[in-house]
């Protein structure tokens, strides 16, 4: 896979609140993620990780606060076009084949020579032999590979990953870690929610912990980073 990073984009979240009725999912979250940073987001279930990622992906509008990208994105090249997002759900169509799914999104993203890009990605994620199978016939891990391939189609400058290792076997996790390492080294900005330590968490250059929708820890030093991910200091 060709590494991304022709454009380096940073994220800035200022005093972000997200309320669902009277319940705060996020409370005055302010973060600045520099271009090329790889940030691990930790926190217990319901701490606001997914909401934060969806706001960063511009899929959810915050109740208050501001999300900006640096350098500022133009309307002609909206920030969403530079973003790759892997969510809990696979975000692909069960009733299409792996190849049809990736071709669909490649064409929407207006990727030059989409068929070649899709073939290359299918080989990378180890699904080339099953490219004509409907996604609904895939195991959870195989679906996750298609989901990751979809997010990487346009070599995004910003990658937002919500527990990306879910369902992957050890080889899959190693492949994903290697891919993310290449993207990080090429200058992509990565924000990923994780639980505990893994090959993927080892890539993080910074760790942030959320608790009840607020940032309670933010560190770039190795030992502290590990303790944030494993809750050793909690």
């Amino acid at each position: 896979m060709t590494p991304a990073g022709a454009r380096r984009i940073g994220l800035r979240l200022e005093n972000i609140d997200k309320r669902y009725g009277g319940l705060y999912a996020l409370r005055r979250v302010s973060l600045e993620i520099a271009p090329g940073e790889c940030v691990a987001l930790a926190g217990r279930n319901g701490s606001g990780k997914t909401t934060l990622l969806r706001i960063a992906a511009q899929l959810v509008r915050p109740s208050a606060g501001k999300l900006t990208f640096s350098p500022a994105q133009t309307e002609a090249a909206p920030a969403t076009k530079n973003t790759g997002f892997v969510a809990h759900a696979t975000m692909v169509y069960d009733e299409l084949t792996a190849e049809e799914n990736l071709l669909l999104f490649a064409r929407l993203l207006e990727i030059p020579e989409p068929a070649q890009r899709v073939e290359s990605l299918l080989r990378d994620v180890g699904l080339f032999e099953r490219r004509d199978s409907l996604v609904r016939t895939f195991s959870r891990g195989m679906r996750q590979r298609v989901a990751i391939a979809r997010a990487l189609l346009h070599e995004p400058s910003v990658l937002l990953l919500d527990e990306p290792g879910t369902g992957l076997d050890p080889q899959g996790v190693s492949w994903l870690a290697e891919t993310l390492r290449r993207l990080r080294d090429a200058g992509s900005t990565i924000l990923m929610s994780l639980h505990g330590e893994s090959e993927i968490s080892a890539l993080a250059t910074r760790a942030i912990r959320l608790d009840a929708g607020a940032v309670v820890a933010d560190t770039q030093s190795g030992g502290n980073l590990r303790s944030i991910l494993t809750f050793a200091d909690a």
Partner: protein
Amino acid sequence: MSLLSNTTVLLGKELRTEFRSRELLTTTIVFVLIVIVLFSFNLNPTTEESRHFGPGLLWLAFLFAASLMLQPCFVREQNNDTLSSLRLSVSDPFAIFLSKLCANTLFLLLMELLLLPIFAVLYNVPLLGVFPQLILVLSLGSLGLSVTGTAVSAISAQARMRELLLPLLLLPLWIPLLLPGTEATAALLSEDPVLRWDWIAILLVFDIIFLTAVWLFGEYLLEE
């Protein structure tokens, strides 16, 4: 240009998934067929009676079939959160809406075209002479049903009790479409068939108003 190319790609996806599963078309065709056949057996109408109440029956059947067809339109996108991946991929979110609108209009028209000959036979109403005019009326009506139905489907997809909400919101909204549609069809099925431009104009205005509204506010309908 992006809007057009994105819409074309997404319309291809809509057609491919429907013709692969045939869920929507089969359900609605069977539904309308049952309604038409049951009324025919129950009332056994003469040609004169059919001219009187046939258009109303036909449009009511199409209305209920459309509410069945439009229900899963955006619900399908919720299953794997594919609406989010579409929103992240298209240049103009209106393309998502436009592709569904085109697909729904095509499916409705196809269903109507398949059922018109059966209606003509069972109700003894000659349609051949007015077929092109009838297609014009049905096309404008189907577009109106699809525009409003697709919009309401997007609203109700994220709601609880969405199966109840959709018809409750849609059926009153469709009354301004039902009246001119029925009247224009009745005028075409009468002994002296005539294309009533006044009713056609109302159908056209309905379509234009709702298309404009959806173009202006459609993006908000897709947000979480």
